[in-house]
């Protein structure tokens, strides 16, 4: 059997190299087919090595073009924010998103919602983010305008040990639940929120599950939290 197999593989790989992929795809036996494909990859690798250098460059230039169109809008918003609230931006560098400081976030949020140029009337998503076990936390807001159909992402870095940020619950009502969820998962406290409690985990859950330094509790209400299944290791 195996000699037949080898022969078949060799034949189909040759055909495939000439551009007829069906030869391999038509092999009914899956094992033989996968072997043939592996052989094909091996054969192609050398041929590709020379060509490969050119393609990434083309891709890169494309990738650079796309964000630039977006950058203009994000930059516009950033400029407007800087003008209205001087010193509110964390970095001048706008790369598809705006990096802000937490202090004036509530006012800035109101401004973004009400300014006729932007009208970000919908808060799409609030994402908590952890840079690492002993680094900063971050909150990322995705805003969207139902009128102008444009979107922006705003990021606010906060200190890990003193994670406080103004709440935007009063600006976008959905902020209520999104912020509770972020609090639940990251322990980021939203100052000014009317009901800053856990939403998904139980009230008495210990720790902030999505932080990178989170460790599972040993026990919860007298129930041992299993780490590894019995007899599975």
């Amino acid at each position: 059997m195996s000699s037949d197999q080898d022969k078949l593989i060799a034949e189909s790989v040759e055909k495939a190299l000439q551009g007829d992929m069906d030869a391999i795809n038509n092999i009914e036996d899956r094992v033989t087919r996968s072997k043939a494909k592996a052989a094909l990859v091996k054969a192609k690798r050398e041929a590709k090595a020379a060509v490969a250098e050119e393609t990434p460059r083309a891709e890169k230039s494309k990738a650079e073009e796309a964000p630039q169109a977006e950058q203009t809008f994000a930059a516009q918003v950033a400029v407007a924010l800087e003008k209205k609230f001087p010193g509110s931006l964390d970095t001048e560098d706008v790369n598809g998103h705006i990096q802000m400081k937490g202090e004036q976030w509530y006012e800035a949020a109101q401004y973004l919602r009400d300014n006729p140029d932007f009208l970000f009337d919908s808060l799409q998503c609030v994402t908590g983010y952890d840079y690492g076990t002993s680094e900063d936390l971050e909150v990322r807001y995705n805003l969207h305008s139902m009128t102008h159909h444009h979107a922006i992402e705003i990021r606010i870095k906060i200190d890990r040990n003193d994670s406080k940020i103004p709440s935007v619950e009063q600006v976008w009502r959905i902020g209520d639940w999104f912020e509770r969820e972020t609090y639940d998962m990251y322990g980021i406290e939203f100052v000014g929120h009317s009901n800053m409690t856990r939403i998904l985990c139980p009230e008495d859950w210990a720790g902030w599950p999505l932080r990178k330094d989170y460790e599972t509790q040993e026990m919860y209400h007298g129930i041992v939290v299993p780490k590894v299944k019995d007899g599975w290791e």
Partner: protein
Amino acid sequence: MGVVHGDLMTLNIGPQHPSTHGVLRLKVKTDGEIISEVEPIIGYLHRCFEKHCENVSYEQVIPYTDRCDYIAAMNNNFGYAVTVEELMEIKVPERVEYIRVIVAELNRIASHLLALGAYGLDVGAFTPFLYMFRDRERILDLFETLCGARLLYNYIWVGGVSHDFPKGFVESVYSFLDYFEPKIEEYNELLTYNKIFIERTGDVGVMPPEVAVSYGVTGPNLRGSGVKWDIRKDEPYSIYEKFDFDIPVGVGEMGTVGDCWDRYYVRMVEMKESIKITRQALKGIPTGDVHQALPKKIRPPQGSIYKRTESPRGDLAYYIVSDGSPIPYRLKMRSPAFTALSVLGEISQGWMMSDVLAILGSLDIVLGEIDR
């Protein structure tokens, strides 16, 4: 004559209750039959989806996305695959795009059928529920021949789909659509235009567009409030811009714009639009290899992406942060049902006991997606 104010009674609807669509608890303050405050308490179904995702590779996340919105698993897979593909800059073959649209629209029909049927059940009509399940079952049958699974498919992969259509699948879908289209009329006769149903849902639980937008409500619920917003049209992903379809919006035919009946009816019309899309896609489906663009190893470059897709419940978005490893650094799912449920407290104040459950049903929530 003054108004007598008695004490309010606190009532827990759920976590075990016939019409909470899962394990949801509504803490309700009632004055007799009148509801004065509703507070949804969620988290009973929390399965740490986001934490799981930080521990499994990109392709292994797909079965987990199935289990978020288990009613429309195809759309969840679709959203995730599209997001990762955009992050990795993969261009998938034409045929794959068509296959994805066909299965996603079929699943949208299945999901709406469940939503409408369960809504009938919420207001006390049992039979429409079973009729709709009968037809939903046919879609599940189709999916079973396609990928083996009936509910949690793991079908749409990053860069492709797990299998090509089996023999005769296109004809089966055509025959299903031919069978299904007249059934919508039957549902309308039985439930939609039933006067009792209209009395129960028309003018009830009105959600004004400003409230809906501020609460981040999306999908059929937002369109029921008269806002014409559909990501398939306004921010087309995949190949939705190729198809010709309408976005139904609520017009307040049986009451005020944004009432339960509008939300219900938008879903009913949306099924027709889905049929339209599916027919067009079936007609134009090209040939090709569905596994052609499957990446050998999914290792997206460093970066983050926020991508929205239209699931049957609204804007389903994934926020993925990649650190260049084969495991997502952070994956956040923005679930449409989460935002839809948050509006319940606002729009059900002052209605009656029975109305609260009618409003809850009209929001079409899936607790698996809310709690994740």
